[in-house]
């Protein structure tokens, strides 16, 4: 696989947390969240990591975003090791990787209007340009400029998630990390958000890294699927292969439990 086609390469990534409640000089228990996981994500595709809560899938996302330091392993983005970039270069690079979180309520600053939230994410000193970009971002996620002066608590759940997506799109990212992007929403809203995500992907050719436990969502969005269980990657396959003919017994179990198969 050549480097241009490859956007993200995770090599032998291990992440562990120290348990709380440990004593001062006593030994601290280590909880291994991610154990020696390697995977590659192709540009323009949607790569889904599935698994139950506690399987380590969110830890992988958090370490890509730099919120969790891994014990070992590397994450390469566009061929650059994210953990060994210089501060300035890192800041620029990290703007190309943007998260969309599950709970839009906690993902929006309650003290900021829609306009400020978006304006903050656009990196230009030109106020006029900022305004225009804010407007077009709003439109691109199906919100209107009427929403500009509103605070998050004045928006509906679906509108909040749309705003989060708009904010993530502002720095024109190459990779969106979607951490359970619709599981906090009603079914009808879920459908709207999913079609918005599909639309955006088509229009902007962005790569998605989808973290989800909901196989229905995975089936709609994903091109490739990786299955995590207790920190270990147990299976990786194309979406068709995974849904039609999963190899690992755990994958089969997941599919059965989800009612798809």
């Amino acid at each position, binding site marked *: 696989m050549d480097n241009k086609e490859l956007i993200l390469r995770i090599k032998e990534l291990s992440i562990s947390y120290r348990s*709380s*409640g*440990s004593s001062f000089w006593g030994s601290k228990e280590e909880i291994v969240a991610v154990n020696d996981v390697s995977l590659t994500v192709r540009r323009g595709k949607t790569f889904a990591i599935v698994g139950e809560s506690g399987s380590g899938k969110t830890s992988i996302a958090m370490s890509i975003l730099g919120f969790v330091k891994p014990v070992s392993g590397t994450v390469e983005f566009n061929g650059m090791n994210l953990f060994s970039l210089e501060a300035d270069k890192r800041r620029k690079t990290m703007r190309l990787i943007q998260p969309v979180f599950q709970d839009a309520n906690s993902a929006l600053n309650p003290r900021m209007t829609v306009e400020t939230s978006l304006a903050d994410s656009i990196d230009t000193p030109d106020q006029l340009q900022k305004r225009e970009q804010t407007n077009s971002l709003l439109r691109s996620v199906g919100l209107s400029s009427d929403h500009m002066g509103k605070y998050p608590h004045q928006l509906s759940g679906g509108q909040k998630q749309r705003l989060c997506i708009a904010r993530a799109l502002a720095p024109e990212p190459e990779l969106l990390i979607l951490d359970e992007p619709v599981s906090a929403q009603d079914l009808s809203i879920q459908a709207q958000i999913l079609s918005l995500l599909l639309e955006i992907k088509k229009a902007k050719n962005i790569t998605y890294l989808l973290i989800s436990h909901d196989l229905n969502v995975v089936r709609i969005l994903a091109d490739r699927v990786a299955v995590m269980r207790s920190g270990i990657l147990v299976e990786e396959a194309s979406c068709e292969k995974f849904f039609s003919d999963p190899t690992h017994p755990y994958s089969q179990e997941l599919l059965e439990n989800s009612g798809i198969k």
Partner: protein
Amino acid sequence: MLAYSIRRLITALLTLFLGVSLTFFVIRLAPGDPTDRFLTPSMSPKVKAAITEKLGLNEPLPIQYMTWVKNVIIDFDFGDSFANGRKASTVIMDALPYTLLLSTLSLLFGLLLGTVSGVYSALRVGTPVDRAITSILMFFYSVPSFWLGLILLGIFSIELNWLPGSQITSIFHERLSFFGKIGDYAAHLILPVLTLGLTTAPVYGRFVRSSMVEVLNSDFIVSARARGLSERKIVFNYGLRNALLPLISILGTSFPALFSGAVIVEVIYSLPGMGRVMVDAALGRDYPIIMAASAVAFVAVIIGNFLADIGYAVADPRVRLGDSS
């Protein structure tokens, strides 16, 4: 647990040492001169210099500090009072029991009153009874202890003459029987304990009420009700235990407030406790007494915090000591 205790002990000793050292320099650098008390305007500078030397105040400050630390650590000698020449440790040890007695009794009284009214109020949340208790608690929460003390003194001691309003014993105390003596102490302590207890109770009452309301609305209480457990069992076995747990942590941190409350109450009721000693020492720049008293005050606060931590660990099996986050 052992490691934790050792760490706590080290922190406590460090606090004590730093605090007392800081106090030493602060009081020395503050304006005012202890020799003033011995001087009349006509006295010559020579006499003043002689007194200064006699009190050991002519040495450079760091030397005085070293001497003080050495005497305290090796001989447990805090020096002699400038005012009357008594050993500072004796002066403090004479006064401390009264302050401890007053603080402990007031704490127990305030805690009992606060807990009972807080729980009672929480069980009737939203009713006129709750509102009345909340208002009364707010009243005593806001009333200055020195004002309440003065009012109680005026009514029950001066006007009605029901209770003694000053000193810890009557003049005929020595002639009383053993039980008479205890009764005499008790009579002298009623108004001070009432004053300090009534102003302490709302701190606990308000806290207990809000934590009890929270606990009573929690899922496990709701499910206990659904399972048909008796209301009595729910309140006492489930509610109280969980509501009172956080009380222990504020109990420890309220020690300094209790101590300062005791100082004021002692002054109002002319009790021979630490409050009187501290105020007199501060007014007269009686350095040895100030230093000894401050050491005691630091130790009291440290012990309070330590007891609160231990109490918390004992009461709540989920807490493992040392988890600082």
